[in-house]
């Protein structure tokens, strides 16, 4: 098994419910298989590690054809919240935790959590805005240094 994957660096760039979970599941799954994992949050993906926002990540009910749901209905007030709760409930049944608990759990597995400096500057954020599990705010160059020798997955 010399070609087995030993390290992954997963980039989370989306701030929607359905944009965030796949990367988190892959990071957690990597650690469960004994694979080294780093998570890098950029652009709206920063909401996942934002203290005030990580509990309020919503499913996109507009502009999401995969939902098979009329765009006009998806735009009505409250629809996104209702659909998010429904999905969260279904995930919980599969033993998949809510986003804040999931991120904490992934940090506990030993995965590294990093915020993208350009995005942090763009949104006028600072280290204090993030959950304590975030190891550092790093540049894209530093990200590539950390990712060296492994696979990079962009989500």
């Amino acid at each position: 098994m010399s070609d087995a994957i030993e390290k992954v660096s997963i980039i989370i760039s989306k701030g929607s419910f359905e944009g965030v979970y796949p990367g988190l599941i892959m990071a957690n799954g990597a650690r469960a298989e004994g694979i080294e994992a780093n998570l890098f949050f950029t652009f709206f993906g920063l909401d996942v590690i934002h203290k005030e926002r990580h509990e309020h990540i919503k499913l996109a009910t507009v502009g999401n054809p995969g939902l098979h749901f009329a765009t006009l209905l998806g735009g009505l007030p409250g629809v996104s919240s209702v659909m998010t709760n429904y999905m969260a409930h279904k995930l919980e049944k599969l033993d998949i935790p809510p986003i804040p608990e999931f991120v904490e759990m992934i940090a506990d597995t030993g995965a590294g959590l990093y915020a993208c400096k350009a995005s942090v500057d763009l949104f006028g954020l600072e280290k204090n805005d993030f959950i304590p599990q975030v190891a550092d705010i790093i540049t894209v160059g530093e990200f590539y240094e950390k990712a060296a020798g492994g696979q990079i997955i962009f989500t």
Partner: protein
Amino acid sequence: MPTKTYDGVEVAVDDQGFFSDPSQWRNTMAAEIAAQEGIGELTDRHWQVIKFMRHEYEEKGTGPSVRALGKTSGVAIKELYQLFPKGPAKLAAKIAGIPKPRGCI
């Protein structure tokens, strides 16, 4: 079907080395399996997890997820990864002589 010999007894395993028949497992085999997986000495904490894996398998027919282990085994996720660095649910299942848990979490 592949076999392995632990504590002098030949047992059936799958191609990744997980027990095909958990009833063939004896706790005297655990240290040997653990050593093969790069885990030195099995401490009381390791044993707490291994016993929990056996118990869960007997109750539910499958090993628990890491999340469930962290919540109910009495060993938190951080420590689970210190005890079983190459993946707690997977390694503890192998050492406890139960099939590999197939959950994504």
